[in-house]
């Protein structure tokens, strides 16, 4: 057997090389296109749980039930700078429930008990109603059902709680089942921008 490459071999190499360069070139062309990547985001001005106009509606839980993950990639987050720190928070307590002996509602609103409440700042030991309370949503328990978001919405609350997408968990599906199910077209693909501090 000759060690010299035959014409057929050379042709094969040439074709392979061309194809590889073609693939690489296509990849480079597509990859070099400038612009931010897009991710799934929730538009709070359309989401029925958050938008200011929709009052007296039932909670829309689709962000929690439609995600393909066992625990949805959507969760509620409290914007602390805008939170009223109320003694009786309508997102923490179920204000329609009966009042207990301390004068607080007896039931909590969150079905997964994902909100933690603690007094902050200067604390009055005698009168608990005198204090400010911080409401922190534990994302390990929250599943994005949106009840607290709806309860905090204006005018009942200050609208500081909103639903966000957990990008570390979101699979970034081409065809997001939550987006398909959203009745308000509030779940959209939008560019990721640099912004507030990341955790």
């Amino acid at each position, binding site marked *: 057997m000759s060690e010299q490459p035959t014409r057929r071999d050379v042709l094969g190499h040439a074709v392979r090389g061309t194809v590889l360069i073609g*693939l690489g070139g296509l990849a480079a062309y597509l990859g070099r296109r400038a612009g931010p990547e897009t991710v799934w985001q929730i538009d709070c001005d359309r989401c029925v749980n958050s938008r200011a106009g929709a009052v007296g509606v039932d909670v829309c839980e689709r962000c929690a039930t439609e995600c393909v993950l066992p625990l949805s990639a959507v969760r509620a987050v409290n914007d602390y700078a805008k939170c009223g720190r109320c003694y009786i928070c309508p997102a923490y307590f179920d204000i329609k429930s009966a009042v207990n002996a301390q004068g607080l509602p007896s039931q909590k609103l969150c079905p997964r008990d994902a909100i933690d409440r603690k007094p902050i700042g200067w604390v009055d030991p005698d009168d608990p109603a005198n204090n400010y309370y911080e409401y922190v949503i534990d994302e390990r328990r929250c599943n994005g059902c949106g009840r607290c978001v709806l309860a905090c919405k204006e005018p009942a609350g200050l609208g500081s709680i909103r639903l966000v997408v957990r990008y570390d968990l979101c699979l970034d599906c081409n065809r997001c089942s939550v987006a398909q199910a959203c009745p308000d077209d509030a779940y959209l693909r939008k560019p990721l921008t640099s912004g507030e501090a990341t955790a």
Partner: protein
Amino acid sequence: MTAHLDHLSAARARRRPVSRRPALVAIIALSVLLASPGKLAAQQYPYERPVNAAPTVEDIGADYQLPTVQAHPPRAAWREALDVGLLVLALGLAAWLALWRRSRIGLVLLAMGCVVYFGLYRRGCVCPIGAIQNVTVALTDPLHVIPYFVLAVFFLPLVAAVLFGRVFCAGVCPLGALQELVLVRPISVPRRLDLALGTIKWVYLGLAIGLAARAATQREFIICRFDPFVGFFRLAGPAHMLLIGGGLLVLGLFIGRPYCRYLCPYGPLLSLLSRLAWRSVSITPDKELDCGLCAQACPYGAIQRRPAAGASGGRYQAIRSTCLACARCFKYCPRQRAREKPAARQGRAGPAAPYGTGGRA
């Protein structure tokens, strides 16, 4: 026989310059990937409410610090680089195991590993099959930006196909690996039926590209929607897709890889490019006897008699566009067993062949 061995060893000893191309491509791809700008998380929509009623930090007093609002950035870039690196490793390993080492057990182990990592851990997403749609969108929508990671996942198996044939299918693709692992009793499909069913994947590819090429509001991603095995990887999914996936797996107990051969839209791309493969699965040639055990062993009908110089009536070859590099043929090949003589002499028996092992291999 020694003449053949000489021929083989001579062929192997041919000093071809080791192509640095695959390594170069990998390095370029990785560096381009790592050079991509880091991702920061933010909500694009400014959710502003005209609130001036919230208590300020001074109101709350007593050294209260405003906590930062929880925000989670997307998966770190190094994790994606790791996935790409593991993909390259798996492709290389599959090529080595199928083409040089010719080890069936090695490929089975690789298949298991890939099902666990790419399938169960990464939940089968991002996969090159679905990436067809992303690349289509990137080509047709000038505003769409496709991440480097998706490009790497799409192009690397194609590059591997140009170099080594369909090694992606060998054990790296989690969907294929899953079917590979359930195939226990292969029954061969009649050629006509096989060819007829094989056209379905071309139609599927055309549909997927056509639907993904539409405008943004009308785009449909049917590959993602109708992926039969993603429900198993996610351990959740719509009932009808889980049933279809289960059905395909049950069918796959007997018919080798029904999804891969008849439905996978990435298959046409691989089959086209693997025809150019630099190195591919080769059937051990022999001048005197073509026993044809490999052709019987191949569950995919990829070994056929083709005309070749120096052999009358042709000899068996693995058809590059169809061969999924599963290495079953080597398990049954008597010549292959003979080459592993030292182990065979120590008593490790290969599977029983109708005409007996050893002897004139």
